[in-house]
């Protein structure tokens, strides 16, 4: 019997030739990430050392990343003080993969990690954030953990008691129609298998559509795997992975790539042909409440959001700008656009894309998580309807339980911002 990609990774990370699904393993961790919640993790880290007589030391500071993104710049004194404590901790522990609130190196953790070459195929990556699944796009096994578990990883360098997960294999074929993209595919998949359809399991993406898809799209598919309950999403590394690492992440060295075996034991297989896939929409208040955009056309929107760790990459904002260029958003719409990192922000600025967006009426926010989870700018009024390229539309997600959120692609968001109502971008 062969192994899935995650079995292969866990076998290598535990120094074994083979691991079975269901085995309890303790893989060595290649990268451990946190953001503002480092403040909690460091509290728990000190708790672990309490009474031991030992000096609290991170097992390997070069394998730890800390990125400020949730509330940047700080929205209040509490956050500012927590960020200050984290800065002191970072300096004291010698953590070098630290991305502070800076225009030359900051951004959302799920963009900072790949674009700085911190994610390598075959790595075991953990982080105190549920969207750690994103990094499977580069062939790593990346999963979210809580802050206490992160403190445990800092201490031991191991992820404790990991059950080797089952894997669902998704085979995707066909060519996307114009204005249909990875976001529509992942919304469609989540609608099909439900918000718990992949619970405690990994989603492994295959097929010609994935082979042709740039890393930016694969990041979308893996980012939202967690919205189907998945432990991780993963794309077996290929030419595109190596191209991204080399050209966009500056990673030149490589080690043998791990790939799943042809006879790997998948718990479920799903085949999807995207050639007839329409732009999709997740309706309030569940990510698996998915319909085709055209079924909700005409729904009035108050705020449109383009950005985030899901769809805040260069091609997302460029696609939105190509629709918005030279046009104006509806007078009742607030359009918020935020790139996923400052590197992307600067590229968009250089190419005039931010100018196009702003001329159309968009407000350009700095890279960060803020409005996606209702903690920093872009709050919704009672009764407001938001249309957003982010990844969650739970009741109250954007900070107001009396509002509602639809999720969509950047193209759907852009065309709907102009019309002021939800609209299918095909034919634009």
């Amino acid at each position, binding site marked *: 019997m062969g192994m899935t990609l995650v079995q292969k990774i866990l076998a290598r990370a535990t120094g074994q030739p083979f691991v079975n699904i269901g085995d309890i393993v303790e893989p060595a961790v290649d990268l451990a990430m946190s953001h503002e919640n480092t403040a909690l993790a460091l*509290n728990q880290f000190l708790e672990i050392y309490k009474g031991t007589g030992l000096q609290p030391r991170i097992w390997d500071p070069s394998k730890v990343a800390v990125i400020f993104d949730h509330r940047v710049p700080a929205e209040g004194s509490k956050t500012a003080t927590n960020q200050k404590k984290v800065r002191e901790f970072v300096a004291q522990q010698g953590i070098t993969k630290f991305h502070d609130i800076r225009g030359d190196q900051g951004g959302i953790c799920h963009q900072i990690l790949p674009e700085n070459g911190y994610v390598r195929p075959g790595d075991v990556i953990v982080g105190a954030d549920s969207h750690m699944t994103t990094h499977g796009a580069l062939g790593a096994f990346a999963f979210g953990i*809580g*802050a206490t578990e992160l403190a445990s990883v800092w201490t031991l360098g191991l992820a404790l008691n990991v059950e080797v997960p089952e894997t669902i294999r998704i085979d995707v074929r066909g060519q996307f129609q114009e204005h249909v993209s990875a976001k529509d595919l992942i919304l469609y998949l989540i609608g099909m298998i439900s918000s*718990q359809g992949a619970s405690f399991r990994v989603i492994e993406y295959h097929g010609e559509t994935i082979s042709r898809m740039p890393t930016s799209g694969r990041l979308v598919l893996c980012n939202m795997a967690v919205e189907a309950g998945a432990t991780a999403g993963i794309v077996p590394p290929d030419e595109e992975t190596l191209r991204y690492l080399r050209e966009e992440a500056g990673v030149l060295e490589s080690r043998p790539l791990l790939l799943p075996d042809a006879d790997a034991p998948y718990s479920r297989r799903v085949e999807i042909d995207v050639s007839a896939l329409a732009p999709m929409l997740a309706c309030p208040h569940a990510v698996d409440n998915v319909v085709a955009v055209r079924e909700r056309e005409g729904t009035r929107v108050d705020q449109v959001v383009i950005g985030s760790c899901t769809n805040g990459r260069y091609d997302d904002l460029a696609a939105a700008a190509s629709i918005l260029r030279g046009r104006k958003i509806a007078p009742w719409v607030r359009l918020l656009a935020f790139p996923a990192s400052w590197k992307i922000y600067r590229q968009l600025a250089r190419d005039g894309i931010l100018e196009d967006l702003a001329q159309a009426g968009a407000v350009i926010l700095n890279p960060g998580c803020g409005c996606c989870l209702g903690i920093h700018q872009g709050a919704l009024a009672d009764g407001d309807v938001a249309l957003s390229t982010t990844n*969650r539309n739970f009741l109250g997600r954007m900070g107001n339980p009396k509002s509602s959120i639809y999720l969509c692609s950047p193209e759907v968001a852009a065309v709907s911002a102009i019309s002021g109502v939800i609209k299918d971008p095909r034919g634009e």
Partner: protein
Amino acid sequence: MNVKAQSEKPPVAGCVVLKMGDDVSTDTIYPGRFMATVLPGETPQYAFADITDFNSRLQKKEIPAGSIVAGGWNFGCGSSREQAASTLKGHGLIVIAKSFARIFLQNAVNLGLQTLVCPELEADEGDELEISDDRVLNRTTGRSFALQPLPAAKRAIIAAGGLISYTRERLLKMRTAKEQ
């Protein structure tokens, strides 16, 4: 940290004080706008903050420790925020659900929030439930439901009194091994 009750007798009884549907997200348990508050001692005030009547009963201490939140499938989905576990733990609540989202369940185990998996559970607000090792008896309706044991990997952490002490033990063992 008293987390041993999860795997050991005697039976405990409590009332269902909040009954919820499927896919209760951590945004419902602990809304994101309170995430700047991180320490376990400070998070309980925001438990179910947007279910305002329930939150105010918690704040007024009208809900005794050992009371039960009954959830459906996929309880605790969404964000990995650990505040969602510490906020409930702070009030001594017990969560019984048909199933849990992975990260929430792990956080609960790590912190010692008592979580029970009961796929067949039928209980309404006000029902009194008796929890034993492997079953939940609804004393109000007289019906009894099997509990699904937690995976062995999680039971080991519970037995150690939570992840902090579990990791501390491992750290000390590692050090001893190194010195020998």
